[in-house]
């Protein structure tokens, strides 16, 4: 047996076995094709950081026109659903029960202060259990009050004064819709699931069932074994990916400002890195339970927490930031958010793509080396 190359016949035979194994077990089809669609659908609707129609209690103790006018601004805002509360004590009880997220209290004497051009105070109590939500609500309340003040000034009912006004412009996402950055991030999560999780089991399963030793006894080469494991799952992952992109763009109106071709190419690169990680875990652990646990710890959870998908990595301690550089998902989140929202920014895409390529080579290489060792000593 002098040939060291890849034999098409051996490879196609092995591929046929792998594909049939996938097709026979509904669970992997379910995970590869049905899950991405269901998950994207659920997450697209379910994952949003934008508070809307926030229930806040309004305690209007003052009956003057300015007080009523300000209270009316809250009803007009699309961010709030004001609930009139008779007393502050009642409103506070609602906050404690979690029925409302905050209380806006316009005290007695407010109108008199405003009309006398003295500083008037509006009290705001927030339910801080969900800190991020509370912070955003706080910004909204400030916005409502500032708009009201601005309006009075324009109408000449309040004297003008030199001060700094802030104009905000959010590039790439004018409306500040969190879904626009979360859907590209969710693609990463879905592909990690298929790439790392599904493949983490495939070699471990062969070891656990004892079929690996049978495969090793055949003339199948290590490269062919690896290719046979990679190709079917690569196809499955790319199909899931394509479905998710179509759904994201059509159902959730996420813009795709970069090139589609580039998205496909870089997704393929990320999928290879994710597959490589899965196969490496599988080749090293050889037990499905352990492989599953490790792929969650090394694949899914970091893709969620350490990828910048949701949380800002720059605000984490240096140690965590260092760890995040080892997570393939981090680079793909950058790539997909940039491609979807900003466009073909080569200065961002190239370094990330390069890192993913290196990771794919390293992971697949390590998996191959481990496989080449053949039967372990007892």
């Amino acid at each position, binding site marked *: 047996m002098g040939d060291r190359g890849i034999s098409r016949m051996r490879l196609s035979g092995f591929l046929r076995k792998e594909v049939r194994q996938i097709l026979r077990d509904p669970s992997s089809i379910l995970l590869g094709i049905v899950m991405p669609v269901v998950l994207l659908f659920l997450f697209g609707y379910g*994952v949003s950081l934008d508070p809307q129609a926030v229930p806040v209690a309004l305690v209007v103790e003052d009956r003057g026109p300015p007080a009523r006018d300000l209270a009316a601004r809250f009803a007009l805002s699309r961010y709030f659903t004001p609930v009139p509360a008779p007393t502050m004590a009642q409103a506070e009880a609602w906050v404690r029960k979690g029925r409302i997220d905050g209380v806006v209290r316009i005290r007695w004497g407010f109108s008199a202060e405003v009309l006398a051009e003295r500083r008037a*105070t509006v009290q705001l109590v927030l339910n801080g*259990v969900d800190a991020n939500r509370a912070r955003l609500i706080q910004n909204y309340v400030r916005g409502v009050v500032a708009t009201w003040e601005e309006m009075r000034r324009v109408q000449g009912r309040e004297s003008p*004064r030199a001060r700094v006004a802030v*104009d905000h412009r959010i590039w790439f996402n004018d409306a500040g819709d969190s879904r626009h950055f979360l859907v590209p991030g969710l693609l990463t999560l879905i592909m990690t699931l298929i790439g790392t999780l599904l493949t983490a089991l495939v070699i471990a399963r062969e070891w656990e069932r004892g079929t690996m030793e049978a495969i090793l006894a055949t003339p199948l080469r290590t490269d062919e074994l690896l290719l046979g494991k990679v190709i079917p799952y690569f196809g499955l992952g790319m199909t899931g990916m394509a479905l998710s992109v179509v759904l994201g763009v059509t159902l959730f109106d996420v813009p795709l400002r970069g090139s589609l071709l580039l998205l496909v190419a870089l997704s393929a690169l990320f999928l290879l890195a994710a597959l490589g990680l899965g196969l490496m875990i599988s080749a090293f652990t050889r037990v499905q339970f352990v492989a599953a646990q490790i792929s969650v710890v090394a694949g899914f959870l970091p893709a969620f927490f350490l990828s910048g998908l949701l949380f800002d990595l720059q605000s984490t301690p240096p140690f965590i930031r260092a760890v995040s550089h080892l997570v393939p998902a981090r680079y793909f989140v950058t790539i997909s958010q940039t491609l979807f929202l900003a466009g073909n920014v080569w200065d961002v895409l190239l370094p990330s793509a390069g890192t993913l390529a290196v990771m794919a080579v390293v992971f697949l290489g390590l998996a191959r080396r481990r496989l080449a060792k053949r039967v372990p000593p007892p």
Partner: protein
Amino acid sequence: MKALRRILTLVVKEFVVVMRDPKSRFVVIAPPIIQFFVFGYAATFDLTDVRYAVLDASRTPASRSLLARFEGSPHFQQVGELRSEAEARRAIDRQEVRLVLHVPSDFGEDLLAGRPGRLQVLLDGRNSNVAAIAMGYVDGIVQAYNAALPPPPGEGLPYPAIQLAERAWFNENLESRWTIVSSLGGIISMVVVVILASLSVAREREFGTFDQLLVSPFRPWEILIGKSLPSLAFGLLDALLLSAGAVLWFGVPFRGSIPALLAALSAFVIAIVGIGLFISAISTTLQQALLGAFIFVMPAVILSGFTTPIQNMPEWLQTLTLANPMRHVISALRQIFLVGADTAAVWPQLWPLVVIAGLTLPGAAWMFRHRTT
């Protein structure tokens, strides 16, 4: 008495299966602890050192004193000065900065003339949540600057004319770490428990030993107890350990009662064991069980209110999340840690967990016998 001894032997066997293999032993102990620290530090919505660049076209004392306030803030970190809007565009495109503070050339004149001076803030919207929070910080700094401006001669009106007296309850400094870490124990223990429980029956199915168990004198409910206890013990241990860690390491306050914590975590872990065993009972292979576990875990984590609030979801999805045990335990844990709830106060979260456990555990026991390979 005999039944008790039978169950005991089964429980011992189940523990041995997990603890015998050094790799298995490692993965039930080490990852929860690693995850706790990594996610405890990583999962925060609060921003520090937001990188920004300055485009000061005004170059007046007023613009410099405004920009100096940003340099002094712990939330911001200046990385450079820009000369044109094109440079600003490029810096944001390349993610070199999160935001650019642009002071237009007529800023100084406007202020001197008593008109509002405009500060333009350009933000990278690729993560719009970070942009929104950073915007809030910018507004805060500018407000403080405005308040310090001298009032124009002859007019007494202070700025701002309306002052917001803001106070946050339960989390006074609005630290998002408190929100996340208080419920981290629930998430992490769930992953361990679902995987352990979903494997327990499927492993025996795959190796053919489950049929032997079924023909042995064990009753289905005895098998159920035997299979539940190890996952239950590991899950509860993890959850309690991590709850203690939240208080001792991350400094999250614990204002509620310990019985409430025990009740919430026990009800939750039992419900999760029920789901895990049910997945296990309907699977015929290990792979199916593991994939089933993930198909459950992914939506359960993401649609739980752990990172993104339930209230932001559409109505139909909010109703659907009532079936998610994760949602109830996260809500209960936050109530207990931050608000100071006792057992009675978390009852609205407790009973759904009990109902879920009451449906899934008998369901799993029934499936043991009725699903044959």
